[in-house]
Structure formats: C-alpha cells, structure tokens
C-alpha cells in the first residue's frame, strides 16, 4: 500500500477531499501545518518591532491507498489543488507495509 501526503493551501481542502472521494478514496486524515518554501512569508509588526514570518498555513492530507489506486489519487489531488501560483504545495508518495482497521482488526487492502 502507499501513503500519499498532500501538502497544499488550506482553502483547497474541500476541493481535494471531493476529488479524492471521486477517485475512490474512503478515508483520509488532515492536519494543519505550516509551510516554508518558495512562496515566502510576510512581515509582522508589534509595537514597532518587526518580525519576518516565513511559515504560511497549509494543510497536510494523508491518505493510504492500495497500490493500484495510487497513481489515480495523486493525479486527482494534483488537479484539485492546482492554482498555478507559487505555494500550491507537494505530493509525496511512500510505502506502507501494513494497515489495520482498529474496529474490525481487518488488515491489508480491506482495512483502508
């Protein structure tokens, strides 16, 4: 199985979720994260003291899928998250050796 991590803009969450569901994904897990990258950050000023904030809010969506679905899912996510502006983010794919569904104890492809 593969784990696909999609790091992208916060307001794209709904679009990506819908796209993934469309690609056959049954579940996913989302975290609020902060990203550093080409997009750059912004300045903040508090009582005359300037701070450079390099991190911008992003979301990270983790989804584990059976091997065969991975390509499709990556493509669906890429399209849904795309705006063409710097800061659209990345998709990482990595191997997962085992999956267990806690409720039933099912493992492998049945569990996702």
């Amino acid at each position: 199985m593969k784990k696909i991590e999609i790091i992208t803009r916060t307001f794209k969450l709904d679009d990506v979720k819908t796209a993934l569901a469309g690609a056959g994904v049954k579940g996913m897990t989302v975290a609020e994260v902060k990203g550093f990258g080409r997009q750059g950050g912004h300045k903040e000023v508090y009582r005359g003291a300037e701070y450079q904030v390099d991190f911008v809010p992003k979301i990270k969506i983790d989804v584990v899928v059976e091997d065969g679905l991975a390509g499709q899912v990556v493509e669906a996510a890429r399209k849904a998250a795309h705006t063409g502006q710097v800061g659209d983010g990345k998709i990482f794919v990595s191997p997962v050796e085992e999956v267990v569904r806690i409720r039933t104890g099912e493992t492998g492809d049945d569990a996702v």
Partner: protein
Amino acid sequence: MNVADNAFILICAALVMFMTPGLALFYGGLVRSKNVLATIMQSFIMLGLMSVLWAVIGYTLSFGHDIGGIIGGLDFAFLNGVGMDNVGSPAENLPHMTFMIFQCMFAVITPALISGAFAERMKFGGFMVFSALWLILVYAPMCHWVWGGGWMGQMGALDFAGGAVVHMSSGAAALCCAILIGKRKGHGSTAFIPHNLPMTILGAAILWFGWFGFNAGSALAADGLAANAFVTTHMAAAAAALSWIVAEWVHGGKATTLGAASGAVAGLVAITPAAGFITPMWAIVLGLAAGVVCYGGIMLKNRFGYDDALDVVGIHGVGGTFGALATGVLATVGAEGLIAGNAHQVWVQFVSVVATWGFCFAMTFVIFKAVDATIGLRATDEEQDRGMDVSEHSETGYQM
C-alpha cells in the same frame, strides 16, 4: 442643572462607549480568524476617529442652531461654547458637555455598525476616509433631523434612542456598501464559519449591558421615563432572544447560541426607537416579533444575492425599520400611536422610514463611489486569501 441626572447620564455615556468594543468583539468572533483584528479595528478605531471629528464638527452640525430643518450651524464647532454648566445645553438639567459626550458615543458606534457588511474585504485606509465622510454627510444630518431640531423631529417622528439615526441609517449604508464592494472571495464555495463564538457572545453581552445606557440614558434624566426605557429595553431583548431560537428551531434546526445572541441584538435594535414610548408588556410583544422578523431579515441576502457578511441589513436595517413602525403603532407613553387612537403616527413613522432609507442609501452610494475611485476600497483576492490582519495591519490575532 441636576446632579443626579448628570451622574446618571455620565455613567450612561460610559456604558454606550463600552458598546463599540462590544460590537468589535461581536463582529470579530463572526469572521474567520485571519480577519479578526481587521474586523475589530474597524469598530475600535471609530472611538478615535469619530470622537475627534464629533468634537471638531460633528456635534455642531447635529446640534448647532437649526438651519432650515436640514443641518445645524457652526456655533459649537471645536466645542466652542460647550461648557461645564448647562448654558446652551439642549438638556437644561445637564452640563452642556455631558449632553455632548453622551451624543458623541452614538456617533462613534453608528459607522462601526456598518462595517459588518463589508467585513473581511475592505482596505483600512479607504475605510477611514469613507467613515469620516459618512459621519459628516450622513450621520450628522440624520441626527439633526431627528434630535437637533430638524424636519423629522418637527414632523413628529418618534425615535427615542436612534432607530432611524443609528440603526436604519447604518442598515441602509450597509446594504449599499455590500452591493457596491461585491462578495468576498470564495463566497458561495468556501464556508464562512464564525471562528470564535464565545467572543461573539461576550460582544453581545457587552452590547446588551451598554444598551441600558443607550436607551435609558436617552431619557436624559434619571426619572421614571428612564426606568421605563430600561425595562422595555431589557424585556425586548429577552423576548427576541427567545423568539429567534424558537424560529430557528421550528425552521427545522436546533436552537443555537449564536441565534440567542443575534436575537437579543435584534430585540435591542427594534426597541431602540420605542423604548420610552411603549409599555413593558408591549415591549415583550415587540421583542417576540423582532426576533422572528430579523431572523427573516437575514435570509434576504440569500434571496437577493448581496454579501452582507455579518447581517447588518438583516438585523439593524430590518430591525430598526420594524421598530420605527411598531413605535407608531404601540406608543402610549408620552406619545400616542395607533393603539392610542392616533393612526396618523403610523404615517409619520412611515415617512421617516422611507426618507431615512432613501437619504442614507443615496448618500452612502455617493461617498462609496468617491472613495473607491480615489483611494480604493476593495482588497485584492490575494490579500483576502492571506487575511486582512496580515495584509492590512501586519499582525495576526492568535499565536497559540
């Protein structure tokens, strides 16, 4: 001069002052967290800008000697002649300064009210200029018309504490601004969910608390009339909080905390013109109606498609209008409305409603267009994405 009245009105002025930061929190909790400070700022800074303008020019335009029923003269410009005694004071029992500063607090909160309509997308610089012009060109005339000896007051329109001057005027301006500035980026696709409802509840509570100063203080004395206005204010707010949550419950959902807070504010708005003119039991009836009417009012924006972000039209516009008309019907205390046999009062109220909406909408239109063409009012999509706090103020609300 009456020292007890002075004590009362000074404290009432403090209470009304407190309403503006209360409004800031009420509004601030309703926006997304990336816009919380910008939203708060658009209310809070009115305490600065409007107060100074009021001293310089606003007060005299409102309460200077009447010029043709239209506007006040410049007698009191720069607070000239506004002293510690009651010389020249529109309220003989009060130091002129006390009257002036009590009225000042009304001038502060009214433009702040409008800001809910264009929340999350207006640039700060343009907002400041817009608000300054609005005070002078809309608020001051309205205030003069109703309370400063102008034509509406002469005509006999009843507006105890600002149904027209404060709520309809800001509601009409809100409608105009919401249409002109356009929808927030993402409207229709993104969920605009309040980021901090406890903050909104706190804001509503401060509003309710301060509103006692607003309405009871409008008796301009600590007499039985003040007591009546105090009681009607409380009862209308209470009743409207209840009827709003009943409405949303019947409407197929749950009773919500935001509904209770919104209902309370709706009741406070609706009772404002009526507070000193109707009895407590009628205030309960008016409040019950106001909760339902304003619950309907906030649905209008979906039907007509403008993005009145925080429902200024639905609550202040609709609620103020409803209250003004209801005053014409229900007045029995120191004035006579329909139920006291004076059908004419309803007509007078109707005329004042139409004139207020017409004047405020049109004048706001002109001001908005002028400022937009010169300084610019709408934040870009990119600024809205980043959030107004960072893009307009280089700050963020929370670092938890």
